[in-house]
């Protein structure tokens, strides 16, 4: 019994379809052309949308960067101006003190070395100091507040003769303290302005934005406004939360 095998059967089927064609309707190409045209339009639309989206993203990020840069620059300028003014104030104070101290030391003990002067105001030259001394001698010196304080502390001129570096340093210490207090006060106000400009960066800023500020070092947790009849909560102390606690080395 001779029957057709699978392989032969498959081959005959393949042969049957070899180079065979099926006539297509005339509208076949026009249909395809229409679809291709639509696809091209859709592709152009998608490309345009992507382009618009990319442009918006680019512009918004550029705007955000510019605003951030501008606010940063304002803060830097404010800080720079603040530092310059405090430095100027400090140098004025130092110069005045130098004048007073020089005058006093020279008048009281001319043999005393100028050790204190050098250590306190290294930029002041000896010649300059001497010329200033002449000027000071010619004109009566009006002591500054610290000088008055120091002179009030010193009971007699004998003590002033034995003045040493420590006593010389005192008024400067006071002056520096005063100056530093002034600086810290001014910088605090500057920092507050900068804080207002830099926006909400953390939980503390958010709480400060919603309610009023309260000193975190204070032991109170809540602060109420009691001016009016109805007391209202105006501040929350989040100092004990210790957010973003910095690791101490």
């Amino acid at each position, binding site marked *: 019994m001779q*029957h*057709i095998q699978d392989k032969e059967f498959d081959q005959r*089927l393949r*042969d*049957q379809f070899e180079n*065979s064609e*099926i006539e297509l309707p005339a509208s076949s*190409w026009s249909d395809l052309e229409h679809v*291709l045209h639509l696809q091209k339009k859709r592709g152009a639309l998608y490309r345009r949308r992507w382009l618009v989206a990319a442009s918006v993203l680019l512009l918004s990020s550029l705007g955000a960067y510019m605003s951030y840069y501008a606010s940063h620059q304002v803060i830097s300028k404010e800080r720079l101006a603040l530092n310059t003014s405090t430095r100027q104030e400090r140098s004025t104070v130092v110069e005045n003190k130098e004048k007073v101290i020089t005058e006093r030391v020279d008048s009281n003990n001319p043999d005393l070395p100028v050790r204190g002067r050098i250590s306190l105001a290294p930029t002041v030259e000896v010649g300059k100091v001497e010329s200033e001394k002449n000027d000071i001698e010619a004109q009566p010196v009006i002591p500054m507040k610290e000088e008055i304080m120091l002179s009030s502390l010193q009971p007699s001129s004998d003590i002033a003769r034995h003045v040493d570096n420590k006593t010389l340093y005192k008024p400067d210490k006071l002056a520096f303290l005063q100056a530093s207090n002034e600086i810290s006060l001014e910088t605090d106000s500057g920092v507050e302005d900068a804080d207002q400009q830099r926006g909400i960066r953390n939980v503390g800023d958010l709480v400060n934005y919603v309610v009023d500020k309260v000193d975190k070092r204070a032991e109170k947790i809540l602060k109420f406004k009691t001016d009016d009849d109805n007391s209202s909560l105006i501040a929350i102390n989040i100092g004990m939360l210790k957010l973003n606690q910095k690791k101490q080395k």
Partner: protein
Amino acid sequence: MYSLFILSLTEQMKLTPKLNLDNLLEGCRAGDRKAQELLYKQTAPKMMVVCMRYARDRMEAEDILQLGYIKVFGKISEFRSAGSLEGWIRRIIVNTAIESYRRNLRMMNIVPITENEEQIAADFDFSRMGMQVLLKLIQGLSDGTRVVFNMYVMEGFSHQEIADSLGISAGASKSQLSRARAVLKQEIIKMEGIDYATYTG
């Protein structure tokens, strides 16, 4: 084969020497509609046969053909002239047909293999049947069986490749193929009629 195809393309499309296959490809790559139309009209009738083998009916076959040619024109720049353009288009059409089947996947009717007792005589003349009749018989197969039959018998995929492509086991592929052969043979015998069934022994 490739040179024969170019010759046939040039003859059948009555292309002038200037408008040879390279020019046609260049035109298609540039998105020239005229060049695309020429390529489509030359190759689509053959590809329609492939689509008809994979589809259940003509409408589905036309959809596959359209989808396939959209891919062809979209990827024509990837075609390297070293290979056969017709073979390349055919691969895209076959892949589109397989994707279409996977997309419209219905439950594969895995029918237990039962050896067909009836056998087609060796001297049966297939040419008497005609391609259209054979197409009808193939289209009559269940979806899974038809795809496996086409992939194995017509495209030459292995059972493992079919299994990987369709997400079935190699055994299931073999089963589907046996089923396809059995059904086709049965149908051919029916058409052959008692007069053509020559059994020996």
